[in-house]
């Protein structure tokens, strides 16, 4: 091999230095983001905990789920309706702790964080659907980016490979600065934060000044809003479904033995220990979306939920078909009108009858609208 001249040697040394320092800086940044600034990786969770920190003791009702719950629930509407319907002495504090891509695996983590922060809800409402319980664990890629640490890697590696998340894993470990650049800049005040998000926490008033003859016009509140979908709406739903729901979730559908099922059962066990009532709510989705749930999938799903409800004393309410497709903006996220309507339905048809302040209320699931 020809000897390198001085310029060549310097160039080689410089590139080796640059590559080594680059990798070292990325690894260091990754460790800092894991241990020193963990919420930079997971700003959605930070927002939930910041909202709860206002008055954690007032969060009577906590919702946990994915973006379907995050954008599909109006906490003010729910809190107000519960307060009126139940004639409560003080308003019911409602906290929407849902974050995008939240399955039971992530919900367990969030519940731990909320309990540590002093939130002690009387009722926890958890979003349910067949995808969330699937053994396939499709949202593992999101958890790699925002939650998991080096020490979690050995246990999660088989799932990472099986779910095709190796690229996410490499980005998470080798390029954390690239992955979290927007959050890093926002954390240090170098980029504006997103504003205009709906409120997450409805504290309500400490005392309620209610007219004696106040009645709720249920018929008016539960009247289905106008929902004539625009032309091409069904096609848009089909395209969104193809984009949002990989078929891999639904092939060889199994629940038992998966990380989500295990996390759900641990979460239910902890809630039972803490005296927190748990309500599992099947989140509304479009008919097109429901058509992907074949009879075997639904059978496995309902069978599993019956078992956990019996084992942990929780309740499952299926709201999957409560809303017409016209109240959705894609295959599984409701529109503004759908959000208000679903919030009313949930408050008046499900939560009010199961209100935790009424200890004598039976735990039977109400009829669908």
């Amino acid at each position, binding site marked *: 091999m*020809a000897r*390198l001249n001085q*310029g*060549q*040697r*310097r*160039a*080689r*040394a*410089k*590139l*080796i*230095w*640059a*590559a*080594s*320092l*680059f990798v070292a*800086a*990325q690894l260091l940044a990754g460790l800092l983001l894991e241990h020193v600034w963990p919420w930079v990786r997971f700003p959605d969770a930070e927002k939930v905990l910041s909202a709860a920190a206002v008055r954690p003791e007032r969060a009577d009702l906590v919702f946990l789920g994915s973006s379907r719950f995050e954008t599909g629930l109006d906490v003010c509407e729910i809190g107000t309706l519960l307060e009126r319907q139940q004639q409560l002495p003080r308003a019911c504090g409602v906290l929407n702790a849902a974050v995008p891509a939240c399955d039971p695996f992530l919900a367990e983590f969030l519940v731990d964080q909320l309990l540590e922060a002093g939130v002690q809800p009387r009722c926890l409402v958890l979003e349910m659907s067949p995808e969330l319980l699937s053994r396939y664990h499709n949202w593992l890629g999101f958890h790699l980016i925002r939650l998991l640490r080096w020490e979690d890697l050995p246990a999660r590696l088989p799932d990472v490979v099986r779910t095709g998340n190796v690229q996410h894993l490499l980005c998470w470990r080798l*390029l954390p*600065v*690239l992955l979290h*650049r*927007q959050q*890093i*800049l926002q954390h240090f005040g170098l980029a*504006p934060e997103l504003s205009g998000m709906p409120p997450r926490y409805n504290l309500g008033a400490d005392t309620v000044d209610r007219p004696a003859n106040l009645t709720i016009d249920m018929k008016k509140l539960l009247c289905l809003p106008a929902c004539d979908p625009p032309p091409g709406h069904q096609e848009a739903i089909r395209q969104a479904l193809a984009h949002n729901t990989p078929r891999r979730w639904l092939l060889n559908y199994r629940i038992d033995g998966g990380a989500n099922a295990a996390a759900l059962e641990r979460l239910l066990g902890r809630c039972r220990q803490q005296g927190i009532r748990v309500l599992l709510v099947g989140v509304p989705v479009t008919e097109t979306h429901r058509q992907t749930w074949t009879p075997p999938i639904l059978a496995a799903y309902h069978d599993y939920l019956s078992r956990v409800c019996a084992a942990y004393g929780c309740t499952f309410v299926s709201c999957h078909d409560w809303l017409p497709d016209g109240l959705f903006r894609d295959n599984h996220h409701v529109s503004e009108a759908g959000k208000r309507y679903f919030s009313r339905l949930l408050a008046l048809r499900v939560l009010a009858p199961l209100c935790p302040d009424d200890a004598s209320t039976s735990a039977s699931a109400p009829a669908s609208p």
Partner: protein
Amino acid sequence: MNFIKSAFVGYFCVVFLVYWSIRTQRRRLLWLLAASCFFYMSWNPWFILLIFASTSVDYLVALQVERTPDPTRRRLLVLLSVAVNLSILAGFKYALFALRTTQTLCTALGIPVAMPTLDVILPLGISFYTFEAISYVVDVYRGKIAAIRSPLDYALYILFFPHLVAGPIVRSGDFVPQLGRHKRFSWLRLQAGIELFVLGLIKKAVIADHLAQAVVDPVFASPGTYGSAALWLATLGYALQIYGDFSGYSDMAIGLAHMLGFKLPANFNMPYFAGNIAEFWRRWHISLSSWLRDYLYVPLGGNRHGTWSTYRNLLLTMALGGLWHGANWTFILWGAYHGMLLALHRACPKPAWFQSLWFRPVAGLTTFLSVCIGWVFFRAQSLTDALTILRGLFAPTAGEVLTESSVHLALACAAVMLLGHLLGTFVRLRRLEQRLQVGVAGAALAAVVIMYFLLLPQDSKGFIYFQF
């Protein structure tokens, strides 16, 4: 596959490693050709057939031109090649424009006519490789270069992926001799290539894309709603955006070629420091301006047939240069505007104090502002929008203002660009870098890459010149 996407980084790593592991030069070239075909086909697989077809015609025509002694037949062969190339370009790029213009004219004249609608996909890079092919055949005809014997060499000259999509427009005389030389791997070239590539990335993805998102796109989308201050900021912002975008792409292309052992010509040389419009065109898109000079302006007569012919040739060359950029009257007007400026520059007397040091900044600023006015036509979505913007620039107009953060961003980008121009002009960066400890130099390169990662916008935009 786009230079700024992660998929391209993976692709290039494979191409690079395999290329340098191959021992023989011919096999390396075969590998490069295959890689270039794969690169082009990743955009649209069928258009590779179009390039092969036009490449075959030019290859065969050039060989025939060289063999044929009869001047008339030689001229006819060249015309055949040029006609084929320009027909393909016109068919894909200008047919719809011609139909629309004819329809507008007929409507204006009261002639009812129904034009067919066309749905044409523009093949990527067609404007660039068409010009390269024409320059090759004409150079063979002029006897400047010998016809390329090897079809592999000619195909690689056209298809070489670093410059295939958006230039630089490479002359065969500069590129083809490099194919015959056996290349040895060089750490120096790798270092230079990586640094150029990173510089290009920063210019494009950090400066140009941020300016586009925060300042330029909102204003040019609805110029009538914005006031004069916002219009000025957007116009200046676009001047920086297009420079960052295009010179960034050129830097990346040149850097990639370096890493493979090839030298592509520089395409930009601190253009916004030009002291007059002629100097601007010697510094901006150098490969295009020199092509227009050698294959359009000079054949039209150049400056050899009197003053008014010179002005006409300048105007025509630049107007056609504008048309090359896009099938829209705004591009033609942009080109004609620059032709007019060049003619004006020729016509105006230049006293000795024009060259003095104190006048240089004034001349530079005047040139820069003149160029910015031209960019209004280049960027505006229609002639109406361009006139609205110009009206707002020169007559104080009330309207919406940009946010404080957008203004700060624009100023920061302008400061960075100015600093870059100053460093490039007055500081010998390479010599400075040589004085640093190698660890410090390496740390500086790593820091620049990490800064690029931090400042990369969430959504990157495509390259402006890909649409040409």
